[in-house]
């Protein structure tokens, strides 16, 4: 995408481009833990669940990030599920003010894809309750645009351009009136064109509490939950040609209150993403202020499964 300068028309183009590049370099989008992480919740064989999650996040320093993540879950067998996560569009934009003049940039394009395989390892079912533990492994596939705007640093591109792996253990304890989920995982990247995203340790937890309806002694058409999620990541610094990129890596922790409507075939959720802790390695990170995520989910059934 183009680097856009709104107020620099009087400045020679070359100088303006160089200045814009330096300004952009000083902004580093911090790593962010994943919201609505894969849980160990049951997926019937043949069941397909499609989810889209447009998310807007705002950083101090004028940086704004928008992405739409699409998730497809497929129950291949009663215990095996495949999860495909793709960021169909990612747009990072900044509007930096320096000496009373603004320089704006945008990097928009396709994001990367993750393919997870989840296996239901342990299961205890009761009437109206289930506890499950499921490990999963995932592969990061560089399907996105890692050079959408040549003037923008790699950390602000829509995609990293790297292959990667993700290993996690997820558990889910669900009852009729509340459910709790937790995940601990590790993510690392192979690097591409001299750039390497730092590996991360991920720890996520979520709690959902039923607020409607109160009577479940009938055919329940839908439910409304209050949700509270927390995401923590501890990351190594990103590197360019072996050198650490300042303002990357470190600790990042958010809490995410929200509300969730869930019917048998579709659902919707609104979640706020609020930072609790941000500790980056070195100066230059754009500090995360807040974010909002809307989730739409549609579920349908196929007769094809193992």
């Amino acid at each position: 995408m183009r680097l856009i300068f709104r107020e620099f028309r009087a400045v020679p183009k070359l100088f303006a481009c160089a200045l814009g590049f330096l300004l952009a370099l000083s902004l580093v989008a911090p790593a962010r833990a994943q919201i609505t992480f894969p849980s160990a919740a049951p997926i019937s064989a043949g069941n397909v669940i499609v989810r889209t999650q447009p998310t807007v996040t705002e950083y101090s320093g004028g940086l704004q990030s928008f992405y739409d993540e699409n998730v497809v879950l497929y129950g291949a067998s009663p215990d095996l599920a495949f999860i495909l996560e793709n960021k169909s569009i990612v747009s990072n934009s900044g509007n930096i003010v320096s000496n009373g003049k603004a320089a704006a940039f945008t990097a928009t394009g396709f994001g990367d894809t993750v393919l997870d395989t989840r296996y239901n390892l342990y299961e205890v079912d009761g009437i109206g309750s289930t506890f499950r533990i499921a490990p999963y492994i995932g592969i990061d596939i560089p399907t996105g645009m890692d050079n959408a705007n040549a003037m923008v640093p790699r950390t602000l591109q829509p995609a990293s351009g790297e292959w990667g792996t993700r290993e996690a253990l997820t558990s889910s304890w669900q009852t009729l009136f509340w459910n709790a989920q937790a995940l601990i995982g590790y993510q690392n990247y192979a690097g591409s064109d001299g750039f390497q995203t730092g590996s991360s340790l991920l720890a996520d937890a979520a709690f959902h509490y039923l607020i409607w309806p109160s009577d479940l002694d009938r055919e329940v058409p839908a439910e409304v939950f209050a949700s509270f999620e927390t995401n923590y990541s501890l990351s190594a610094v990103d590197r360019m040609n072996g050198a650490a990129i300042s303002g990357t890596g470190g600790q990042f922790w958010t809490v995410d209150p929200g509300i969730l409507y869930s019917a048998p075939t579709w659902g919707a959720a609104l979640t706020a993403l609020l930072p609790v802790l941000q500790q980056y390695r070195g100066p230059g990170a754009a500090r995360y202020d807040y974010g909002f995520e809307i989730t739409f989910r549609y579920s349908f059934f196929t007769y094809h499964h193992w």
Partner: protein
Amino acid sequence: MRGFANAKLGLWLGLGLMVAQSLAVPAWAADQPSARPALPPGYGEVQVTVLGVTAPFFTFGIVKRFEQIPGVEHASFNLKHGTADLLLKPGATVTDEDLRRAVRNASYSIGPIHWIAHPSTKAAEN
């Protein structure tokens, strides 16, 4: 600190929702008693206890699995009791094994199976 203050606001909001829920049932949440229609002549009915189903979102999978069994006309699920009610067509030859397979394919565990009326018997009587 600003982030922490926002987080605290979210915590209080969540807590408030829980307290409000425990104090009163809102008018819009009033439930209607479920009507149980009489079984049509020749039809059968079986009640299956399914363990592990906790929300309408999950009933979708189990109901679809039951409705895949040849001879099942309709399936419904009661979350509180964890029971599925299956209406069987006249002459249907649904077995306990069919029901067990359906429950496992839906990724749940099966409990007691209670046959209220066998369709083949009903069909012969009518």
